[in-house]
C-alpha cells in the first residue's frame, strides 16, 4: 500500500453524525463522562405512566417490602424532573399520544422501560384495534420486562440491569430518537394522522445535543416545518376570543 491511497474509514454511525474521536475525548473528559454516568445510574427518578394494570406491582416495589430506594430509584411526579419513563402496561392510541408528549418533555439523558407483555406485542390485547402493539416503534426503549404481570423481583432486576448499562455508558436509546426522528415521527403520523405534531422542537434539540444524523430530518419533519409558519395572527378564526378582547381595548 502506497502512502497516497486513502484508507477507508469504517464507522457504524452515519457520517453526518457527530462522533467524538479519540483526540476530542481527552482523558479528563472521559473521566468526567464516566463519573457523570456513574452518578446518574445511582440516582434514577422514575416517572411511572400508570395506564395499564402493571401499576399495581409498583407499590410493593417502591414501599418497604422491596424498597427500590435502596438502589437509588425513587418515584418522581413530573416528566421534566424524571430520568426514567416506566410504561406500565398496555397503551391505547389515545394514551400513546400522551406518552410521547411526556417523553419529549423529559430532559436528556432519558431512559424508557416497557413494562409487561403489552408493551412488547400488545399482550392479551394483541388483536384489539385500539391497543398499540410495539412501543419501540414510537419512542426508543432501553429495556423491556416480559410478563403479565412482572413481579417486583423482575422490576428490580430491570432497574439493576439499567443501572449497569448507564454506568457503562451503553444506555443510549434516547440518542436514537434524535438520530432517527423522521422515522419515529412517520410511524406516529401513520397512527395519528398527518396533522400530528408535538410542542417540542425535537430537531432543534437534536442540534443542541449534537445528535443530528441522516434520519433526523426527512419528509415527515418537512410537514412539521410547513406547520411551523402558523401563528395566532395567521389563523385568527381559531382564537376569536383574543380578537374580541383586542378590539374592545381602549
Amino acid at each position, binding site marked *: 500500500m502506497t502512502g497516497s491511497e486513502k484508507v477507508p474509514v469504517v464507522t457504524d454511525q452515519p457520517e453526518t453524525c457527530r462522533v467524538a474521536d479519540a483526540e476530542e475525548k481527552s482523558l479528563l473528559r472521559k473521566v468526567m463522562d464516566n463519573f457523570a454516568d456513574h452518578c446518574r445510574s445511582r440516582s434514577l427518578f422514575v416517572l411511572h405512566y400508570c395506564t395499564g394494570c402493571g401499576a399495581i406491582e409498583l407499590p410493593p416495589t417502591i414501599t418497604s417490602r422491596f424498597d427500590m430506594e435502596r438502589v437509588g430509584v425513587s418515584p418522581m411526579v413530573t416528566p421534566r424532573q424524571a430520568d426514567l419513563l416506566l410504561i406500565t402496561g398496555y397503551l391505547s392510541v389515545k394514551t400513546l399520544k400522551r406518552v410521547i408528549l411526556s417523553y419529549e418533555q423529559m430532559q436528556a439523558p432519558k431512559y424508557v422501560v416497557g413494562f409487561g407483555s403489552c408493551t412488547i406485542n400488545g399482550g392479551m390485547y394483541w388483536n*384489539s384495534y385500539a391497543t398499540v*402493539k410495539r412501543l419501540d416503534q414510537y419512542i426508543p426503549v432501553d429495556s423491556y420486562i416480559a410478563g403479565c404481570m412482572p413481579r417486583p423481583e423482575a422490576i428490580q432486576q430491570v432497574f439493576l440491569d439499567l443501572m449497569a448499562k448507564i454506568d457503562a455508558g451503553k444506555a443510549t436509546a434516547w440518542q436514537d430518537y434524535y438520530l432517527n426522528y423522521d422515522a419515529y415521527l412517520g410511524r406516529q403520523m401513520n397512527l395519528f394522522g398527518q396533522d400530528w405534531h408535538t410542542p417540542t422542537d425535537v430537531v432543534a434539540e437534536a442540534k443542541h445535543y449534537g445528535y443530528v444524523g441522516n434520519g433526523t430530518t426527512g419528509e415527515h419533519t418537512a410537514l412539521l416545518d410547513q406547520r411551523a409558519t402558523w401563528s395566532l395572527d395567521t389563523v385568527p378564526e381559531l382564537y376569536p376570543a383574543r380578537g374580541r378582547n383586542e378590539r374592545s381595548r381602549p
Partner: protein
Amino acid sequence: MTVETGTPATIVDTIQHEIPGIKVTKQGERRLRIDVARDSLPALLELLKGRLGFIHLSAISCVDWPETDEFELVYHVWSYERKTLASAHITIPRNPGRFVSVYDIHTPAGFYERDIHEMFGVVFVGAPNLRPFILTSWGGPPPMLKSFNTREYVNQTYEWVDYQPDWLKDVEAKGGGVEK
C-alpha cells in the same frame, strides 16, 4: 312524583294494562325483561319513569345481529324504591340504522347514544351531540360491528414483534431458547 308501591307482579300488570301487546318476562326476583315494539319504547320509558319509579337509566346496550340484519337496543332502567332492573329490548333494521333519541326522557342517554353511534353507527334522531367520543384518530368503520374485521385492521395498522430474531438462533445453538 308518586310511586305506585307493590310487588313486581303489579309492575307487570301496570305495564301490560297501559301498553297492550307488550311482553314482560320476570327473569328473577329483581329482573324484568320487556320486549316492546320500537315505536312504543319512548312511551314505555315515560311510564316506567313517571309512574313506576324507574328513574335511573343505567345503560343502553347495542347488539349487532347480522343474520337478521338488525340492531338490538336494550335500555336498562333501575328503580331505587323497588330495587328492580327492567331491561327493555327493541330491534331496529340495520339499514338505515336510525332510532329516536330518548335524551328528553333520560338526560344520561346523550352519552350512551353518542357511544353507540360511534361504535355501531346507529343514528339517534334528536340526540344533542353525536360527535366522535372515545376513539382517537379513527378513520375506519364503526369498530364494534360484526362485519369489522379486527385482525385484518390490526395487521394493516401495526407491526409485530419478530418472534424468531437472529440472536435467538445463537442462543438455541448453545442449548437455550424460548420455553415451549
